[in-house]
């Protein structure tokens, strides 16, 4: 059993008590909600006549269903409009802060909470969205929950949970140019598997991780759930504190030193005990692309799609399913695979630095004929900052569309969808069957810079040739 890790410390500090079942009642320091997984939770509160216990600890925004081309109300999609109205009414009735479209603060929930300084080290954070693991980049214990649990947090600011084990994942060494945080996490998941993390919290450590920016750290933690780990975190350090300073909800100046001291004290101890430890060498990581229907089915761009016999026995059936669905063959290289749609955005890779890296590749080059390529900033602030730097002009001049913020084609709950058997190069997080809005649509996950390179080539390319 783990001891002395950040996970243990945060867990112990937030423990309200032990329930008769033996589960822990855990206090949730920050609760984030959005339009998809909250309406039924509010309905349950109304049925039971319960108030929101700590309304100031819940923050709402709208991201999953928002159109990215025309955000005028009412939305053309009447079901989406109903969801918007439900969220607006629920926030008003229960006194919850809501960042609506046009507020200047709207965006993907996992982009806006960090950028406003709501996400801080040592917190517990829950949201009805599996990519809540993103917030672990700050040294928070952050995880996704379902709608009944959203109800529980609204009603009690707590959850009934069993403690997770802790696996330390070290990455050491220097990443080569053209290899980004996205490649690091795709590489980790490929090697530990999509179910390797079930029952674990992942602690990412090592000098490679320590050198990553906060935005890159968020990319790594974001995809913990794709490795089966409900949460992943990085111990807070000077990079974390520098990012937080002066953000809207960061501690006030008079309390800053006290906050930094406390945050520092929450980091894992040098002699902490872990349930498991693994390590990776950064130099061995190439630009990585998925070829299959799980985020663990990835290869370095120089490699070929694995043959079934090269895979562990329990991964062969899903590999066969993937070759068939993707219409790709073992032994084939992904390099040069024709794509139809290129999507840059999502809670994984929709932040300013992601757009900057993609724009560097797009600068002075043109999207290949027949390719639909679009960029969806993660938030209104990201959009505004990107425009202040002129990134939108770079993208537009290259032939990319420049959209309004939202989750967009990561999960295609809005009008942004693949058609038929189209294949996308996508900076998002899931390549599941049908994920991007077409039951036969196909997704190749990669870094935003690799998506930009694919858009220009019209096919999967090696971004290192574009640097």
């Amino acid at each position: 059993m783990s001891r002395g890790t950040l996970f243990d410390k945060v867990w112990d500090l937030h423990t309200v008590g032990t329930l008769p079942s033996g589960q822990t009642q855990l206090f949730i320091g920050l609760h984030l909600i959005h339009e998809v997984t909250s309406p039924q939770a509010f309905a349950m509160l109304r049925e039971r006549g319960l108030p929101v216990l700590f309304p100031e600890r819940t923050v709402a925004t709208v991201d999953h269903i928002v159109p990215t081309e025309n955000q005028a109300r009412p939305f053309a999609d009447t079901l989406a409009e109903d969801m918007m109205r439900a969220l607006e009414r629920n926030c008003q009735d229960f006194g919850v802060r809501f960042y609506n479209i046009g507020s200047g603060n709207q965006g993907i929930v996992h982009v806006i909470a960090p950028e406003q300084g709501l996400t801080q080290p040592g917190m517990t954070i829950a949201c009805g969205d599996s990519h809540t693991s993103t917030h672990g980049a700050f040294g928070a214990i952050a995880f996704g929950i379902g709608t009944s649990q959203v109800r529980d947090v609204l009603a009690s600011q707590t959850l009934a949970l069993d403690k997770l084990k802790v696996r330390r994942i070290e990455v050491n060494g220097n990443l080569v140019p053209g290899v980004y945080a996205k490649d690091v996490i795709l590489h980790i998941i490929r090697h530990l598997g999509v179910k390797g993390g079930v029952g674990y919290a992942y602690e990412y450590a090592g000098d490679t991780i320590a050198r990553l920016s906060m935005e890159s750290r968020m990319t790594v933690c974001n995809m913990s759930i794709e490795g089966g780990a409900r949460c992943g975190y990085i111990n807070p350090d000077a990079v974390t504190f520098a990012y937080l300073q002066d953000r809207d909800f960061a501690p006030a100046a008079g309390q800053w030193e006290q906050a930094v001291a406390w945050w520092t004290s929450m980091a894992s101890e040098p002699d902490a005990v872990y349930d498991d430890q693994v390590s990776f060498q950064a130099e061995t990581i190439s630009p990585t692309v998925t070829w299959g229907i799980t985020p663990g089915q990835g290869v370095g761009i120089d490699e070929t799609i694995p043959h079934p016999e090269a895979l562990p026995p329990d991964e062969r059936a899903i590999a066969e399913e993937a070759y068939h669905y993707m219409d790709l063959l073992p032994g084939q290289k992904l390099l040069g695979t024709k794509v139809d749609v290129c999507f840059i955005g999502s809670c994984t890779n929709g932040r300013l630095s992601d757009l900057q890296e993609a724009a560097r590749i797009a600068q002075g080059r043109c999207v290949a004929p027949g390719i639909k390529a679009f960029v969806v900033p993660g938030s209104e602030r990201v959009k505004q900052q990107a425009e202040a730097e002129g990134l939108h002009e770079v993208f537009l001049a290259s032939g990319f569309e420049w959209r309004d913020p939202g989750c967009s084609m990561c999960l295609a709950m809005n009008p942004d969808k693949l058609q038929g058997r189209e294949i996308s190069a996508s900076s998002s997080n899931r390549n599941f069957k049908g994920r991007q809005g077409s039951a036969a649509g196909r997704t190749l996950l990669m870094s935003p810079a690799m998506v930009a390179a694919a858009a220009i080539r019209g096919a999967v390319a090696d971004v290192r040739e574009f640097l």
Partner: protein
Amino acid sequence: MSSVSLLQGRGLPLPGNDIDTDRIIPARFLRCITFEGLGEHVFTDDRAQAAGRHAFDQPQYQGASLLVVNANFGCGSSREHAPQAIARWGIRALIGESFAEIFAGNCLAMGVPCVTAGPEIIQRLQTALETDPTQTLRLDLDHLTLTWGNQQVSVYMAEGPRQMLRAGTWDACGQLVAQTDAIRATAGRLPYLHWGSAAQGSAQSA
């Protein structure tokens, strides 16, 4: 809330590892403000592709109430719409090699047990259900056993969820809310709830 300790019914085998919640209920069906009607869309794209050969469509499995799956079932999105769709189709319990964490938590909050057993047992059970879909499965959470035909095997479930199901406290909301004094005491010792914020310059008290 009712106690969940003994589940009996016919079984439905659904082979395959890593069956994600997007496959269980595609995102376009999440455009809703209630869970009503989700049952008819469970596995809708997989079923359309299988053209009648999907287990949820095969006549011999209609009316089944125990779903038998393989490893990492319910991975991906946290959408409770997935277990809601499965339960509203008629499933009362799931038996599998392993379940994604959030999915299993959502099932528990709905009073739907997810129990696990080794790959060899699951395959044996799936084969048995393919051979004879009419037989009754008996899942006993008091003794953590699963019985079919003349076979009885042990199944596993973490103690906390098992106790909540047996005691009928799987909807934790009431128990959690009852601890309001202890909740406020915990909030009182969290330093970050008492710092002022840079933008407001005033204490956000909890």
